[in-house]
């Protein structure tokens, strides 16, 4: 428990001791990655609270279960593919081969956009079936969950597109592998979040 040890230090002793005392960067990773982890903490808090509210609200008597559009299964698969492509892109970037990096990034972008399109289509199916948000809290949670998740993915796409641009324009940019790695982590995380939300939607 390094953290505990650190909290037990007696800083008033041994002034001038520099042995083993480094500057910041306790974690030994680039700040962008730490920043991302902190952000994932925030997003985790956000979706956990959404989920808890869903669990509580769904016990009320006016809750009417709905059959979610089947296309959501397809979308989930697409999101999984996006995640895998990004991991491959990240691996390729680390081993320094620009061509597969470009291809996998392109694939990840296409899959992500496809996923968003699929979610929009699911909305259309819901609306066509007359399942409006105001009609029932189960419907409302469907729209809200998918929308908030999509908003997070859109935010990620901004960075993914930037990385894609760099992969074409300056494939040897030394910052590129790091950035692609961050995107991959974020996509895996959003995949997990989606799995949780989808499970909640299906189970109620």
């Amino acid at each position, binding site marked *: 428990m390094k953290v505990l040890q*650190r*909290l*037990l*230090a*007696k*800083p*008033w*002793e*041994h*002034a*001038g*001791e*520099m042995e083993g*005392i*480094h*500057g*910041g*960067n*306790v*974690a*030994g*990773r680039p*700040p962008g990655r*730490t*920043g991302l982890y*902190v*952000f994932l*903490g*925030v*997003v985790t*808090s*956000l979706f956990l*609270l*959404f989920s808890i*509210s869903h669990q*509580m*609200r769904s016990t*009320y*008597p*006016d*809750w009417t279960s709905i059959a979610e559009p089947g296309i959501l299964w397809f979308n989930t698969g697409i999101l999984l593919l996006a995640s895998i492509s990004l991991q491959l892109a990240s691996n390729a970037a680390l081993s320094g081969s620009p061509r597969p990096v470009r291809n996998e990034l392109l694939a990840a972008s296409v899959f992500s956009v496809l996923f968003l399109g699929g979610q929009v289509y699911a909305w259309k199916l819901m609306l066509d079936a007359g399942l409006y*948000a*105001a009609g029932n*809290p189960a419907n*409302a949670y469907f729209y*809200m969950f998918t929308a*908030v998740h999509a908003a997070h993915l859109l935010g990620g796409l901004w960075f993914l597109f930037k990385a894609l641009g760099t992969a074409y324009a300056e494939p040897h940019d030394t910052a590129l592998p790091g950035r692609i790695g961050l995107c991959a982590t974020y996509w895996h995380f959003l995949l997990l979040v989606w799995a949780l939300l989808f499970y909640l939607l299906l189970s109620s």
Partner: protein
Amino acid sequence: MAYVAIADRDHEQHLHDPQSFVTKYIWSQDHKIIAIQYSLTAISVGLVALVLSLSMRLQLGFPDTFSFITPGEYYQAITMHGMIMVIYLLTALLLGGFGNYLIPLMCGARDMVFPYMNMLSYWVYLLSVFVLLSSFFISGGPTGAGWTLYPPQSVMPGTPGVGGGIVLMLISLVLFIVAFTMGGLNYVTTVLQARCRGMTMMRMPLAVWGIFTATVLGLLAFPALLVSGIMLLLDALAGTSFFAPAMLSMGEESRHAGGSPILFQHLFWFFGHPEVYIVALPAFGVISDLVAVHARKNIFGYRMMVWAILSIGVISFVVWAHHMYVSGMNPYFGFFFATTTLIIAIPTALKVYNWVLTLWRGNIHLTVPMLFVIGFIFTFINGGITGLFLGNVAVDMPLSDSYFIVGHFHMVMGVSPILVIFGSIYHWYPKMTGRMLDDRLGRIHFWCTLFGTYAIYLPMHYLGILGLPRRYYALGDTSFIPDSAQAMNAGISIAALFVALSQMIFLFNLAWSRKHGKPAGGNPWNATTLEWQTPQTPPVHGNWGKDLPVVYRWAYDYSVPGAAQDFIPQTMAPEDVPRDVGSTYDGREGAHA
């Protein structure tokens, strides 16, 4: 390759110096400028909230004399006053202002680790302020739902601002949370990864610990406000029924059915209670540093202070329902939350003891910052003790929604943090501008503020015990309330006017001293922490000149026996410490109480 600490690397990436006025002062990525932008914006919007409180006080003190505020406007004033004070003033000033200014300087960094995002954070915050204030200018005006925004009344006809007001409020809050998150990621990552060589976590000043922990709390708690805000927004706009139950409103059935107002309360207070500590922890941290500097003594129990900050942070997530004792909850549930509430009082009280023990036999300099420190300790004890009363279900029941509550929370999270903020501005203004604030004006400002706020808030406790309800426009001829209550209310209002006016002294001092204050030099208080050791005052872009500082000791080497000066800066190596003639002091051991 061994990892090179960020701080040890060259920072050419953010060191292309800004050229024009616009990139230097407006579209700036420099944490010091952003800090000042945050602070000035927060103070300005705080003045709006102050004016709103005066309009309420005039109504309460002289109900038959003034007719410029209607009952509806009274609710709008309450709501905007409370929300602005808590979120847009205190949170923004303590984290966006103080956090931005102090973290890089006190940790020995050149800037925040993500300067561009830091800049965006300020501009989104400013936008959220504009959206909030714009609700004054739409038809129907701002929402009058109270700062707690409880549904169903916040989204039902009959409450002022139910059309546009509540929507703008919620949108503004969402923007604020986005801004806070961008800032918060910076503060946390900078503390974790950009400290200079030798600055271990346990060598950090307590101000950084307080701001750091408060930021973590904010990052985890604001999502609860975001969740409740989004769902409330959907209830208001899309006709969903997350929170809004079926209601007969003015003879008409509402379009909602089945929603749970209690769900909102849980979400709101899961944010709302940590919010108290988001404001309090930075204040605690800053006070610990001020008390050490101005009493020329090391802080008593540094490690205990760090642990207390951390444990308060953790426990503050399991006390939220003490704001909901009157919501009809299960008695065991209430018992649980009463217990956690009393437990969180332990580390809090510990901190108070440690401040007092730091003062004990210190070489107390009654500077203006020190006056504010003492005022804060006093006031915080006051507000803390009434908090113990309210934490107990049985005592809280009759006092809930009375003026006792208003007195309590103004003491503990109104006056206390405001005193800290004033004290810190007197303390750090010399670093920010190179000039001292005027001492005599500072003393006048302190005594007027201290006595004035006590004249406002102490009597409120008595009014509450009499049964005066909170959030009432007028009491009319309520039979159980004696006439003397009205006299007291009039007195409180006069005190409020007095306090508001005396803040003009402070604003004048800020403006006047900028040009005419005494030159401060680099380290006017003889303090040890890094921000006082910058090569230039005010510090320039990049803070440290060519080389980053190196830290050899903790932040509290004051009055070390054997050392010739009563402070040893954190940057001073043991062999460089000047010592008393004949002393064998080796410059290594601090004087720990």
